[in-house]
């Protein structure tokens, strides 16, 4: 059975999301809604990973939650990114950078989403009701983040592209 493989794919995608959300939050600190929402969505990704860990024990996949990156990690590099954001915040270029970053985030969400779909099909075939329930709840959370990237890109694009 290769269900463990599908679980690892979901784990990697959600870990990548959590890490990317942290980087984006620091980079766009002057866009206050992005700064705060990436923190919220990172917490959502952690919740997904924790649920997955509880349901996937018997599939022998390493799902130590402490692997997940912490919210807006502190440290010299993070501080540098935040300060750069605050200084660059007064110029139009960050708008373009924000669009590019949101698009990249959207694609990471799409990858995580399709991984949850695959795992859900596997859980159904394996008749693992517990895992299926986790997939159902977590996938809907991942889709929330993905929809936010679409809404936020729609908000940002006209101002950036017509300037």
């Amino acid at each position, binding site marked *: 059975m290769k269900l463990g493989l599908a679980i690892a794919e979901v784990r990697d995608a959600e870990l990548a999301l959590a890490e990317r959300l942290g980087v984006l939050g620091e980079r766009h600190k002057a866009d206050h809604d992005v700064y705060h929402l990436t923190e*919220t969505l990172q917490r959502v990704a952690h919740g997904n990973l924790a649920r997955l860990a509880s349901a996937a024990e018997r599939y022998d996949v390493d799902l130590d939650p402490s692997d997940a990156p912490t919210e807006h990690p502190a440290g010299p590099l993070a501080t540098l990114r935040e300060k750069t954001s605050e200084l660059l915040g007064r110029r139009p270029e960050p708008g373009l950078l924000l669009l590019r970053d949101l698009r990249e985030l959207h694609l990471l969400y799409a990858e995580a989403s399709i991984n949850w779909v695959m795992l859900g099909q596997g859980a159904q075939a394996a008749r693992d009701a517990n895992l299926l329930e986790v997939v159902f709840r977590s996938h809907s959370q991942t889709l929330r*983040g993905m929809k*936010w990237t679409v809404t936020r890109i729609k908000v940002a694009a006209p101002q950036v592209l017509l300037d």
Partner: protein
Amino acid sequence: MVRYMEEGTLPFFWVSCTNPLVSLPEARRIRSVLASDEVFLVVQDLFPTETAAIADVVLPAAGWAEKTGTFTNADRTVHVSEQAIDPPGEARSDLAIWLDYARRMDFRDKDGDPLVKWSDPEPAFEAFKVCVENRPCSYEGITYAALRGGSGIQWGGERLYADGSFFAAPDVCEDYGKDLLTGATLEQTEYRALNPDGRAILRACEYVPPHEPPDGERPLQLNTGRTVFHFHTRTKTARVPELQSAAPEVWAELSAADAERLGLGEGDLADIRSPRGSIRARVRISGVRAGVVFVPFHYGWWDREGDDESRAANELTITSWDPVSKQPLFKAGAVAVVKVADADGVVSPAPTNTASAPVTDIGTTTRGQEGHAADTEVQAP
């Protein structure tokens, strides 16, 4: 918009009857953006405000008794308000100012005719009615003549949802709704899938912790808000002697437990500090919840000597807003409160009645002006 001004992609900002320099969160940021040479700032108001003081152009506007127009109450009642007196000096109604602007800018429609084809309040009202025709908030049947015939008239009639018919149908509704956690908009297909016709849709959201929770360094949660004696940034209410004398100056409310722990008493001068800035205010020990310090946001510096910003509550607030309503989070930042000076017999300027009432007798009472008292005898039926 503030963010776009900050980035330099929104260079022209026209403020009408509001005062963002004092009312928006993180005042230092707002000041630096609006005062920037990159932003051309127009302020249109009845009185000089803090924002008007840094504007590139100030347009004096007429007050409600100095112009004709309609207004709609929160219960949908539309009223016509007639001009009673002439505006002072060069002041003109908002409508007259904007029409003059449209004329000078030579705004045209697709046929090359003037974009705005009316110049008075009544035709403006008729033009507005066309904009909301066949929408849930249609003003059909409401005219100046009908409004002058009696009291106000409710748009939509007396009963809005007669026969249990709601505006939820996908082709009728104003909005497909948003995710309460992120503000992401629902697509039409998602909304249709809910089969909303005639139903109310209730959305829930899990608890989300504040972005800046109190900690060891800043142990109190800041809650900014209002007193009933003032409206917004006191542009009008500070000019009403009764209201101004009831609440003449900023204060900070603490619970008895927090005040004792911090060694603060009634009237002590305190420094209140957040990561954004600091203010000074005299302490009132009120019925406010423990762990919270309340500061009214009404007080700026237009009626003070110089540009002393040390009493504007928004020096302290955080730039963050609810993702759906976009309402700033004025009640979720962390602050430290430290005593600066003893009261020395002075009490806090907070009203002794309403929400700021002290928990113990402080020896003074908020009262109306001398000679304004009235005796009313009420007889039991």
